């Protein structure tokens, strides 16, 4: 009996430990793997949390999934990168207002052997056509993420109907950016990636940037408050404070200051 009483005490202690985390004010932010895995949040959040005493809890998903999290009322703020989807989210009444926060760009990554002969080019659409013509291995995120939508738009601009054209060369992995890069590294395949994740990615193997600098590779990030009128559980005050800080001069400066190896990962471009 003594043993079981002790076990109960231990269980109660564990529960206390578990609930202790939930005491302070916090908001939940649904964001993308690119912002989390590039290390941006680790750099930004301590600055904000210290000033406002609001804890920011980030759940990192693909853009499509992150927006769905907002649609179910499970997030207070959504911070993602696929403008048409974000505008639909606001139009449907799930988000209050969409604000530009920052941008970076996508890069085409490929093996150094460059079987499709695209390395060093500046025209991403031309590169996509060459990859298709060479039937060179290409890894797609295939997960309704912002990067996946950007990739699909580029196939469309290339005049290639990817749904019909995909074959063994086109590998739809359904994975986040990092795991997809791991797959591409393993297969020696081309892949579209956001620059932030690429810069912080360690397992590059034989991969390198093949194409960059095309205006069509622009990657805009936007932030939205989840509509408190729809979900009363949304912590409007704290969430709005975070959004206001992100687009303020201080927040924008903190974004610009985040660099890896001297290279900036994101460029602030809020409109005020």
């Amino acid at each position, binding site marked *: 009996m003594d*043993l079981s009483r002790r*076990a109960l005490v*231990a*269980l109660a202690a*564990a*529960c206390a*430990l*578990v*609930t202790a*985390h*939930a005491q302070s004010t*916090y908001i*939940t932010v649904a964001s993308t*793997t690119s912002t989390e*895995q590039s290390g941006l*949040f*680790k750099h930004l959040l301590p600055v904000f949390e210290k000033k406002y005493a609001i*804890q920011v*809890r*980030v*759940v*990192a998903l693909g853009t499509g999934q992150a927006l769905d999290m907002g*649609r*179910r*009322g*499970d997030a207070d703020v959504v911070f993602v990168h696929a403008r048409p989807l974000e505008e639909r989210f606001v139009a449907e009444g799930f988000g209050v207002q969409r604000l530009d926060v920052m941008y970076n760009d996508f890069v085409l990554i490929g093996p150094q052997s460059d079987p499709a002969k695209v390395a060093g080019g500046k025209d991403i659409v031309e590169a996509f056509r060459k990859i298709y013509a060479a039937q060179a291995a290409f890894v797609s995120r295939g997960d309704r993420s912002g990067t996946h939508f950007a990739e699909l738009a580029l196939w469309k601009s290339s005049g290639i109907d990817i749904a019909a054209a995909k074959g063994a060369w086109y590998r739809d992995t359904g994975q*986040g*950016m*990092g*795991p997809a*890069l*791991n797959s591409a*590294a393993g297969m020696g395949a081309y892949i579209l990636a956001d620059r932030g994740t690429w810069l*912080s*990615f*360690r*397992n*590059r193997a034989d991969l390198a940037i093949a194409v960059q600098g095309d205006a069509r590779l622009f990657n805009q990030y936007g932030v939205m408050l989840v509509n408190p009128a729809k*979900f009363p*559980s949304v912590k409007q005050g704290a969430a709005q404070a975070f959004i206001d800080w992100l687009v303020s001069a201080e927040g924008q400066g903190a974004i610009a200051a985040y660099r890896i190896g001297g290279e900036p990962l994101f460029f602030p471009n809020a409109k005020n």
Partner: protein
Amino acid sequence: MGAFADAARSAWGLIATGDAALLDIVGLSLAVSLSAVACATVVGLPLGAALAIGRFPGRRAIVILLNALMGLPPVVVGLAVYLMLSRAGPLGAFGLLFTPGAMVIAQTILVLPIIAALCRQAVDDAWAEYEEQLRSLGASGFGAALTLVWDIRFSLLTAILAGLGRASAEVGAVMIVGGNIDGVTRVMTTAIALETSKGDLPLALALGGVLILLVIALNAVAHVVKDAAQRRYG
């Protein structure tokens, strides 16, 4: 092989320096998995014993179902618990999603069939052996079940450890219902998944090494406690 050497070195570094972030993650892993196993044990042992000794219609079907549920895919459990706890779901008002509490619920569901099914088998075997004896002593079904469970309590430890193994190893369920939030719901397995995503394979492997050491340590403690108890009360 370079990756393994790197991993071993950084695993040792993490342990030797008592890395604070790692300690938090280890602590939360233990709190979540042990809580889940405790809850599953409280429900699973009586359930398993009742199924072993009780005779009622549909019993065989329940036993088959329970055995099959030992193979529940964690991702599916995670998804179901997510939809239940989501603000838009039936239990949304409690605000449990993305908290350690949600992770305990998901792991309890995963572990319960394992503990109940293994307990049922153990009690079933003991029942086959001692049924006549217990009946001649005039024990009722309930009394017999209690006697048997108490009698084989040390073998039931294996059932509980199997449940703990499942809880501490799974990533699919805690990833979905916990959200892998830094400092709040990040546990060993989700941290390993994250480092793999970042392409930091040596660190991911090092964390894996730490997790395995932890599980070995837990099992060793359980074993020692069992031996001591057996000597004293056996």
